[in-house]
């Protein structure tokens, strides 16, 4: 409070306010005359003047033009209207008011023309340069875009060709998912904030995977809402990919620069929003399923002969083993039987000896009589043996084969004969008969 008092003490004056107002008016009118560009808003008219605000995203200036001056400009009917982009020429003015009239500040316009393509392009280029320098063109392009989104958001005018074209494009894709429409004005001074709000609203929906912003063609002034700095900054910062389809191929708006994808038509936007052609994808999927089936069948078929051979292998080995086993079994059985037989033979022989001895013991003195009879028989038998006859001086005639020759005819027929005596043989040749 003390400081405020000190300032008051230092300041010049006090001056009469009317005199100060006049000085201020003179000061304003001395300021340089310039031209400004911006959007007309809040247009109104009195008997003598037209009033409006000229504004852009950063600020606004209250403007006024005498109706006389306005008529001389020859603007087209409805040329000066809310939402029009205009270039005005003039300078600051201050109306000091009067005993009954209120004071006011205006930018006193003496010239007004609708902003031309060149004016807008110059503004657009300045904005483009600024946003590019801030790196806002890269953010959306780095986002991953799903090839097959289930739900897409669309910002467009409720009635317009863009909506119809987009639907047709999606239908050609074979896509019948869910569309969330966010309708917004696309051409006036309310358009940019409404579009920005719609985009933000769609991005806030958890299942919206891509957002299309679509509008048909027009002049750059018609499309100017899509060059709005605030809208474009909003789009650049979104984490959901935005596909812009504003105007036609030759139209280039700032939203095209910040969006993930810029398309020339709503039809192209449909293809960008759903990169996968479902009709082709079904064919591809069937082809892949077929490849899998063939691979599975082929893998088994290629190995079948080998598997069959492998399956037969154990059978063959088993049969071979079984034969070997049977042979061995037979050999073991035979060996066992031989062992048993030998043991039985031995036991049988043992038993025979024991029995013989027992029988001899049981036979007693009768055995001696039998032995004496046997000896007699042997003597009688030896008396008939040829050797005994030879010993008495006889000779035995034998053929070359050792067989006895018992007739003269047989002896004459033989080439050689052998005369066997008791003490040896003499070889002889029969002489032929005279």
């Amino acid at each position, binding site marked *: 409070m003390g400081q405020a008092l000190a300032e008051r003490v230092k300041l010049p004056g006090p001056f009469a306010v009317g005199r100060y107002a006049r000085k201020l008016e003179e000061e304003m009118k001395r300021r340089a005359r310039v031209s400004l560009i911006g959007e007309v808003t809040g247009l109104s008219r009195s008997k003598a003047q037209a009033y409006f605000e000229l504004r852009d995203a950063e600020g606004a200036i209250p403007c006024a033009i005498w109706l006389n001056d306005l008529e001389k400009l020859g603007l087209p009917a409805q040329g000066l209207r809310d939402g029009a982009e205009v270039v005005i020429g003039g300078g600051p003015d201050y109306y000091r008011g009067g005993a009954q009239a209120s004071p006011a500040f205006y930018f006193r316009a003496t010239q007004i023309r609708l902003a031309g393509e060149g004016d807008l392009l110059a503004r657009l280029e300045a904005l483009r340069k600024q946003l590019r320098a801030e790196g806002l063109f890269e953010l959306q392009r780095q986002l991953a875009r*799903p*090839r*097959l*989104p*289930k739900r897409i*958001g669309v910002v467009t005018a409720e009635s317009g060709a863009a909506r119809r074209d987009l*639907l047709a494009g*999606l*239908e050609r894709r*074979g*896509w*019948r*998912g*869910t*569309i*969330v*429409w*966010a*309708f917004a004005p696309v051409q006036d001074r309310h358009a940019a904030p409404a579009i920005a709000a*719609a985009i933000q*609203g*769609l991005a806030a*929906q958890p299942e919206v995977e891509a957002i299309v912003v679509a509008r048909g063609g027009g002049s750059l002034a018609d499309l100017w809402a899509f060059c709005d700095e605030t809208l474009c900054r909003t789009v650049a910062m979104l984490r959901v990919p935005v596909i812009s389809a504003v105007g036609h191929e030759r139209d280039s708006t700032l939203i095209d620069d910040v969006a993930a994808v810029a398309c020339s038509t709503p039809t192209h936007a449909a293809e960008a929003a*759903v990169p*996968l052609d*479902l009709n082709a*994808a*079904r064919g591809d*999927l069937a082809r*892949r*399923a077929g*490849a*899998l*089936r063939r*691979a*599975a069948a082929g*893998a*088994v078929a290629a*190995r079948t002969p080998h598997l069959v051979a492998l399956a037969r292998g154990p059978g063959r080995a088993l049969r071979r083993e079984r034969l070997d086993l049977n042979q061995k079994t037979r050999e073991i059985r035979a060996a066992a039987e031989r062992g048993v037989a030998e043991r039985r033979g031995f036991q049988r022989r043992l038993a025979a000896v024991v029995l013989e001895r027992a029988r001899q013991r049981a036979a007693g003195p009768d055995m001696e009589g039998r032995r004496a009879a046997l000896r007699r028989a042997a003597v009688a038998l030896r008396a008939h043996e040829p050797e005994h006859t030879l010993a008495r001086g006889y000779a035995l005639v034998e053929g070359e084969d050792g067989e006895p020759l018992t007739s003269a005819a047989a002896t004459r027929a033989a080439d050689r004969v052998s005369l066997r005596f008791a003490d040896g043989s003499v070889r002889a040749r029969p002489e032929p008969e005279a």
Partner: protein
Amino acid sequence: MAASEQDPSPKPDSYEDAVERLEQIIDRLDSGQAGLRETLELCREGRDLVNYCAAELDAVGEDLKELKLDELAERLAAGTP
């Protein structure tokens, strides 16, 4: 173990992932380098992926649904999907 008793393949994150994996599987099978067991496992995984992809295609291939953002926002606020 029968195929039906085996654990199902992990569900892919997206259609793109599923198709990419499917292509890898087919390339591997086409190379002829996979053994029988690997081949059969790849085929099983591939069949699961084909089924997943077919379901994804069906999910966006039946009936187009159109919602309005305002209505959707109201339904979400009311707690109904």
